[in-house]
């Protein structure tokens, strides 16, 4: 007999810990625990068996891994939180006693924690961090647009808007924006930075008020983490792009509401006094100046002759060869033993020669002017990230590179109905004819299409074509662009109906209608039942249908019905032999499939209905 096993000493009972147990173990308040969990990214787990994890109780609690909690117990932030608790007590005592000077010195030495180590722990590599900044960006952009209040101080909002501007600057600079979507919630942007797809949502420029059922403390804790995370991520992105981080802010421009334009992007290779000496590094060998070209040639000759490297070549090898001058192509060296093993490697050159589907300089040839009713931050960001130039009227902020009268303007983004201007000077008319007046959706649709679309559908005052999501939907979802399946049949039926209704007063061919009825009967009688078949036959005879024709029709309909039903009935029968578990899984899958199909068919039906209405309306208009 093995050792007796005590209950609750192993397995799920040890691996999981409830939330109240966790706070008791960490000796912190629930608020502190929540803060820690948010900062450290620890979330509850669902045990396989709740009863086993909770000493036989099935009360609704949330469980954490006991190891997660043990890991939290060593957290320096937890220590700081405890210190802060002590500090708060001391401060309140000092204030209560009216000891202002000691309260001041306490306040000066307030314990503060840093989140650097947490960032490093949660995101060991830069890619990990970059992959997870979606939520951070959404929050930053949201808080950048919030009004300040006692709980959300101005400094926080300023920092958020700074971070938002930095991110936009980087995206514009690296032209990594890929897609944009104007939704009812805000504008979705999707960028591709270091092969990571990052999507963020920016609310429209309206004042947001924090609803009462939202716990601001939770949001602020998240924001604390996100600010630090984004700071480090941006630092890395900027330094990798050779820029100074943080980008200096031009205060004068900022006061003029220049927005993103108030920041100055500085190249990090600013130490200009060092640069020329490096680039003009001249090496003299045997009294002769050696340039990079010479070096390259020497190396090439050495490689060809495969001679031994001598001292001179060793010296020259230490020199930098300028990679921009000549690029050597990778040559595939097949091994003699197994010539097929080495597959040609995709090199940078071959990748570059591939057709570039993505056009990041889409708007480079154009100059835009933003009319004052369209939102500047959105379209400035969109146009500039695709290489276009954009100007705006001074009412939407300072820093416009040109004004409205600039002759280079090709497009005007305008979002108001057309108004006839009777006293338009010829000059104005000429200017008007030179420019294209498009609605804002054109910009976004061009970006999503990856090409410049015809402006005709988007000109001022026109009814816009629908704006579709560039992110796509699940496979097999309803596609509003594709023609509706069975639309053709429907159309023909429609036509038939119409023709029938038109010929109603005309004499109808009686025998034809009878024929149709008989054939319909055949279709009904396409079963195995002989009695039904017989009845159908009799009906056909009574209707005076040619027996040969009847046979033909019968065969046709039978074949059709058989091919439809036989398979399905067999499957139905085979479902009997499924195990219970399989049947449940099958039904679940079928349920979701049916739900999607229903959704799709519902949308299709709505669309055909709308189209029919439109056609009818058009016809009526035409007849009038």
């Amino acid at each position, binding site marked *: 007999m093995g050792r007796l096993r005590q209950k609750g000493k192993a397995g799920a009972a040890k691996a999981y810990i409830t939330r109240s147990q966790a706070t008791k173990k960490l000796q912190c308040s629930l608020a502190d625990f*929540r803060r820690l969990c*948010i900062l450290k990214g620890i*979330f*509850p787990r*669902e045990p396989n068996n709740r009863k086993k994890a909770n000493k036989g109780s099935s009360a609704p609690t*949330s*469980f954490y891994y006991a190891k997660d909690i043990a890991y939290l117990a060593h957290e320096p932030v937890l220590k700081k939180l405890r210190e802060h608790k002590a500090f708060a007590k001391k401060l309140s005592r000092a204030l209560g006693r009216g000891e202002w000077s000691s309260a001041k010195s306490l306040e*000066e030495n307030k314990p503060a924690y*840093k*989140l*650097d180590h947490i960032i*490093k*722990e949660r*995101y*060991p590599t830069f890619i*990990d961090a970059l992959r997870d900044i979606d*939520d951070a960006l*959404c929050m930053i952009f949201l808080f950048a647009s919030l009004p300040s209040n006692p709980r959300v101080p101005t400094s926080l909002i300023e920092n958020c808007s700074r971070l938002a501007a930095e991110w936009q600057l980087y995206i514009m600079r690296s032209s990594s924006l890929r897609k944009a979507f*104007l*939704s*009812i*919630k805000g504008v979705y942007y999707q960028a591709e930075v270091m092969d990571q797809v990052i*999507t963020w949502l920016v609310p429209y420029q309206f*004042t947001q*008020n*924090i*609803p009462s059922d939202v716990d601001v403390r*939770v*949001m602020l804790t*998240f924001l604390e983490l996100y600010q*630090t995370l984004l*700071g*480090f991520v941006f*630092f*890395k992105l900027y*330094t990798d792009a050779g820029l100074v981080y943080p980008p200096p802010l031009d205060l004068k421009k900022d006061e003029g509401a220049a927005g993103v334009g108030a920041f100055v992007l500085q190249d990090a290779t600013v130490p200009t006094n060092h640069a020329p000496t490096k680039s003009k590094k001249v090496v003299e060998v045997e009294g002769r100046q050696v340039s990079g070209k010479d070096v390259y040639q020497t190396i090439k000759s050495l490689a060809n002759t495969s001679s031994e490297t001598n001292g001179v070549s060793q010296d020259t090898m230490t020199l930098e060869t300028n990679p921009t001058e000549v690029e050597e192509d990778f040559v595939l060296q097949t091994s003699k033993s197994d010539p097929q093993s080495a597959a040609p490697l995709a090199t940078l050159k071959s990748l570059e020669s591939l057709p570039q589907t993505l056009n990041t300089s889409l708007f480079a040839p154009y100059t835009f002017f933003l009319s004052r009713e369209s*939102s500047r931050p959105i379209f400035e960001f969109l146009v500039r990230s695709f290489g276009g130039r954009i100007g705006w009227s001074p009412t939407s902020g300072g820093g416009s590179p040109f004004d409205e009268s600039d002759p280079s303007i090709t497009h005007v983004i305008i979002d108001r109905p057309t108004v006839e201007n009777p006293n338009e000077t010829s000059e104005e008319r000429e200017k008007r004819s030179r420019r294209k007046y498009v*609605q804002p*959706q054109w910009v976004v649709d061009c970006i999503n299409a990856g090409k410049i679309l015809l402006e005709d559908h988007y000109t001022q005052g026109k009814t*816009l074509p*629908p*704006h579709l*999501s560039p992110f*796509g939907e699940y496979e097999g*979802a309803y596609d*509003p662009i594709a023609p509706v399946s069975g639309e053709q049949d429907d159309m023909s039926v429609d036509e038939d109906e119409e023709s029938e209704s038109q010929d109603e007063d005309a004499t109808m061919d009686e025998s034809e209608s009878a024929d149709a009825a008989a054939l319909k009967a055949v279709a009904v009688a396409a079963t195995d039942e*002989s009695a039904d078949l017989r009845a159908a036959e009799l009906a056909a005879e009574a209707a005076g249908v040619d027996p040969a024709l009847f046979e033909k029709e019968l065969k046709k309909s039978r074949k059709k019905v058989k091919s439809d039903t036989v398979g399905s009935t067999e499957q139905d*029968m*085979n479902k*009997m*032999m*499924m195990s219970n578990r*399989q049947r449940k*899984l099958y039904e679940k899958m*079928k349920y979701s*499939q049916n739900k999607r199909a229903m959704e799709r068919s519902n*949308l299709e039906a*709505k*669309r055909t209905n*709308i189209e029919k209405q439109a056609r009818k309306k058009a016809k009526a208009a035409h007849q009038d």
Partner: protein
Amino acid sequence: MEMLSDEEGSEGEESDGQEVDEFPEIDAESDEESDFEEREDDENEEDEEDKEDEEEESESEPDDEDPLHVFPKAKTVVSDITGQLKRVFPKIEPDYDSDSSTEDAPNRVGNIPMHWYDDMPHVGYDMDGKRVLRPAKGDELDRFLETVEDPSAWTSAFDKNTQSDKPLTTEELDLIRRLYAGENPDAEYDPYEPMTEWFTGKGKEEVMPLSAAPEPKRRWVPSKWEKKKVMKIVRAIRQGRIVPSKPKASTQPQFYAIWSESSSSHAPPLPAPKPALPTNAESYNPPEEYLLTDEERKKWEETDPEDRDRDFVPQKYSSLRLVPGYDRFIKERFNRQLDLYMAPRVQRVKLNIDPESLIPKLPSPSSLKPFPTYKSLKFVHPSLARCIAASPDGAWIVSGDENGIVSLWELSVGKEIKRWKFDGKVGALEWCPRTDVSFFVVGLEETLHFIIPPYLPPAVYHLTQTLLAPSTLPPPPENPSPVRWTTSPSNTWTDDAPLLSIHLPASSGLASQIVWHRRGDYMATVSSGGNQSGVWIHQLSRRHSQAPFKKVRGKVQMVLFHPAKPNFFVATQQYVRMYNLSEQKLLKTLTPGIKWISSMDVHLSGDHLIVGGYDRKLCWFDLELSDKPYKVLRYHSRAIRSLHFHPIYPLFASSSDDGSIQIFHARVYSDLMTDPLIVPLKILRGHEIAQGLGVLQVKWCSKHPWLVSSGADGAVNVWCN
């Protein structure tokens, strides 16, 4: 008598008086004498007072004459209360000389709670000890009228001493105004009086020192001890023991290349799942079909926010400038954050398979032919056809109904050959499996009738007759059985009457099942109603019946003979037991997990058993394998009524109260390792449901893959391939 009563009355009065007099306030000075006097002088009081007044007036004159007295001269009078001499001072004229206030309250009770006088007619005593009577007080209406009439009513206040309203003086009104205004209540007080400098100021400086002592050294020499203390601190600072306040760390976080150092080898935590990307419906200008109709919108509003498949209502705006701010933006972001830190995350393997691939691949029914596919014949009984039996050669069918009609008809054409009419219900029918004789047994209430069908070849007929009614009866059993075997006398033998009858014990109920052993000598019957188990085994050759079980736990539903071994299956409500009859012991108990077993049948090999139940389940048992079912099928929508294996073909059929018959292909392999193959082949429909009952019995025709079924609608159908 009257005198007596008077005395009594006076006594009473006296005592009353005493009591009354004791109660009111008694001055400390007054003695018991005053009590007497008061009692005596009730009537004389007024007279004496008058006298007193006169005396006072007469005696006041000499007082005025004396100029030396500062204070008015006192008079000595005899008090009419105590009867002794007392000094009476003249009333003081209320002028400026008087030390008391001008309006002295007549009531002299002092500052006492006035409610002590609530029950009294007076409110106190004046200076002379006379009662101050309570002023007349009208009702509320009078008082109100007074306030209206009196112009000074609003400047008067209730005086509790006199219990009446008293107009306030101008000084008092001024005081009240000052208190209201927060000023000093004293009108004469001047807070800004010019300061009078008594000891300081110009010309009053003290120029001479108070002491002539020389000034001490400590006044101008720096302190040594202070220097020591300071030096101590200086030294501590120099040595670094005291650190001057640390430079404050900047609140702005400092960013650096955090990812340039190598990271720990720990795997990074799994990233949180990203929220779903927006679809076309979220567009500010979606295609029109995405907009909700009125019903859809209503439905959306009615569903709980958590159950909605979309958290927004699609909307269409003609241009971007008309798009309003999204009011749930912050709430949605907050919900996302709640998900991030409060929702348990589980990694699920998503099954990316076609659901159709879950359906087991079975051979197509068309490759498993022959099996019955269509209804070829219909034979109708006037009432519920409960049971049927097919002859061993497969040419004849006997069917019985509730009204006691038993019909014999031909299978191939459906022509009725003969009809028997009995009194009572026909519960069971079974044809004897022997081929050399031909007869069938009808279970009619509590009797079993043995009937020989007509048109038999003479040899067969003769043999059957000798079997059922032998000329020499076998010796009766030693212990008599309650079951009686009766043969009608030979002269009454006709085709209409049974040749042999077995009378089961009374009150054993309807014989619900008859089952033959394969040799045709033994026959088992199950009676439904009896309190006993109701199972009997009858031996034809010995004309003897016996009950195999003394007692069976549960109600026996069905019994079966094993096709090869001397085994016997007994199905009670929930269990199937397998007994060995020769060794008389229990071999196995099968637990199908059915609440109420309705039917069972055993495969020809004897190793497989199917059991059907009223709870729609059909269980397939592999007797070699386990006591638990190998397969459970649940595909009838109502209770299963009957099951039957085909004697030759690998087929079995199940019939149910839903009016359908299901045909299965059931191939059993002799190889023990291979599982039996069960393929559903065909669902036969054609019986109507009557009184909640569907198809009551199915029987296979022994030579062909044909099925005979009897239903509650009275129809007996033949299904052919």
